[in-house]
């Protein structure tokens, strides 16, 4: 690697996670993924259920071992470390899950849950663990009164704050947020997203934001990767991907997202995909998206599309990337094109 370039905090190199499912069949949840996440970046991964985004997130923090390829942490392959070194190393790489109810032990008090990672690590004296836990509780917006309460006494948003405080106790450098705000009401979701942004600035965190919610990903991410059936089909700077998608699947995702805008500012047409995600046990030949793609050609069934850069830093896996009549920014996001929109009054007839 060129030494003038900063080392990515996570480099996924042609990695795959394959699960044997009996009868000699293999489910390739993640299959040949390449990406690099830079320090203090927010990297979004978007995809539908079954796309492999959660498995990829788990592999990134060593909860799944890659079956093929490798995943480097700041240039180090964690699986080259001894078991003891690996345990110490992975404290740097944390995850916040979707459902805080399932992530918290119902029989542990909030304080105990928050300090548990430090208790397991055993680096700090007892008094410092408690002090850090209380300090982090306050930092994430929980009153110290909650310390001796139990998870069932808290709301969903408060429980998610507990989960965030507890991953921060080990001073991680990277946090995978796997649908971390999906179960929350929109006003609470906004609160937690604000908190994530503040913590990033304060602790110099890197985030990998995994979600199916395009609005969330587009708001928080610097760059975004779109996954489909275990593969990344598009990757680029968020504004490039959202405004000028290169892959027909990204176009369909953008188009399917319902936007809370009055009728005159909503897109005139939508791309509604036919059918559902094919089984990842036997993905379609060639391009995996071809069975639902409105532009599919015979070539797409015969050959796997190459992963190529169609514009600076904008990658996609489509034989016809750059040549397709994909919906334009004005068609996908008419409200962004109309600066006069904010001056549009309500018309009562």
């Amino acid at each position, binding site marked *: 690697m060129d030494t003038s370039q900063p080392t990515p905090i996570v480099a996924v190199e042609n990695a795959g996670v394959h699960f044997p499912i009996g009868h000699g069949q293999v489910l390739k949840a993640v299959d040949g993924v390449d990406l690099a996440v830079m320090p203090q970046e927010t990297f979004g991964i978007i995809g*539908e*259920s079954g796309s492999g985004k959660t498995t990829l997130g788990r592999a990134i923090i060593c909860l799944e071992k890659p079956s093929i390829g490798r995943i480097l942490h700041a240039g180090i392959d964690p699986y080259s470390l001894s078991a003891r070194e690996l345990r110490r190393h992975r404290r740097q790489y944390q995850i916040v899950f979707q459902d805080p109810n399932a992530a918290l032990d119902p029989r542990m008090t909030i304080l105990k849950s928050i300090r548990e990672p430090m208790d397991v690590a055993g680096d700090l004296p007892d008094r410092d663990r408690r002090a850090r836990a209380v300090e982090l509780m306050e930092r994430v917006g929980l009153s110290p009164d909650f310390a001796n309460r139990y998870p069932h006494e808290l*709301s*969903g*948003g408060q429980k998610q704050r507990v989960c965030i405080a507890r991953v921060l106790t080990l001073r991680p450098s990277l946090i995978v947020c796997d649908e971390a705000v999906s179960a929350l*009401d*929109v*006003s*609470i*979701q*906004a*609160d937690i*997203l*604000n908190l994530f*942004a503040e913590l990033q600035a304060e602790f110099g965190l890197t985030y990998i934001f995994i979600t*199916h919610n*395009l*609005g*969330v990903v*587009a*708001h*928080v991410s610097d760059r975004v990767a779109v996954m489909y059936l275990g593969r990344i089909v598009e990757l680029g700077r*968020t*504004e490039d991907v959202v405004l000028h998608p290169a892959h027909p699947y990204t176009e*369909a*995702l953008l*188009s*399917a*997202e*319902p*936007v*809370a*805008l*009055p*009728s*005159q*500012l*909503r*897109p*005139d047409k*939508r791309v*509604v*995909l036919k059918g*559902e*995600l094919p089984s990842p046990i036997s993905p379609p030949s060639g391009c995996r998206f071809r069975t639902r793609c409105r532009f599919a050609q015979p070539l797409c069934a015969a050959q796997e599309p190459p992963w190529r850069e169609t514009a600076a830093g904008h990658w996609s896996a489509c034989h016809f990337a750059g040549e397709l009549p994909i919906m334009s920014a004005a068609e996908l996001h008419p*409200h962004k094109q109309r600066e006069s*929109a*904010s001056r*549009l*009054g*309500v018309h*009562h007839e």
Partner: protein
Amino acid sequence: MTGPFPVAIGGTAAGQAAPLLDVRGLGISFRNGPSAVQVTRDVSFAIAPGEVVGLVGESGCGKTVTGLALMGLLPRATSLVEGDVVLEGENLIGMSQRRLRQRRGAKISMIFQEPMSALDPVFTIGEQISETLRAHRSIDPREARERGIEALARVGIPEPALRYDAYPHQLSGGMRQRAMIAIAIVCEPRLLIADEPTTALDVTVQAQIVDVLGDLCSRLGMAMLFITHDLGLVAQTCSRLVTMYAGEVIEEGRIDDVLVSPRHPYTSGLLRSLPALAERKTRLPAIPGRVPALGEIPEGCRFRARCSFSRSPCEVSQTLDPVPPAALVRCCRHGELALKGVL
């Protein structure tokens, strides 16, 4: 015209034509030992024939309970329902169970968020569709099968004759939701209550289901109450919006009006906290605090504790006031506030 949904035929809140559904002063309480906990209070709104109305609010605001009350599905032993739910001139509140059963499925139907728990796993899809048909029509099994397959085709299930004999576990999430819709609409009800019907589904499948529902509304002239927390979906599907907060209706209006100029600080707060519409990477204007728990509803305006505009007049209970030409709002300061919407 955007979206698959027809523009409402009927009027607005004021209602020129006779409404299909008229909910007046619906109050629901749950018995809790010797006392009762109030869940909703004075919920009133109307739905015109063929109209699609959105019902929004955070979790715990009483949306689902309201939907269940309209269907008469709240357990009578533990819930007290007051007020009127008038469907095509008949009050469903206080109606005998026998007569109510004749209305449910035939005139008013409901679909739920999680199709797997709403469908019976030990019966085929076909058996569950024909059960509805045979409860309401005197129809022979062969005709029931034909009508059932027709209903499956209508909701966009491929190979409906094959799927008719499938069990719920053999279908994907999207297909199960379609099957549940087929059961709900097989008798061509006048009103469908859709309670978060796409929340458990992926966005591309959600788009398909929303299209199916829109298509059914326009083809059958069916009205729909769309219960959701997703304001984007409401914008796309509904012509009118009812916002609930802590068991009360706090705002009602035409969707395009409410999105641009909401009248209630709560509706404004919900719209502004949407990340999709905010400037990228900026701080989102969240609503502080959370919905009060049942039994902890504050005196006066229920939203007061979370509202940045609250003043002393907010300490008394608020009334739902008309705002010409077609809106209602429960906020004494609505005349003086210029609240931000989505733009």
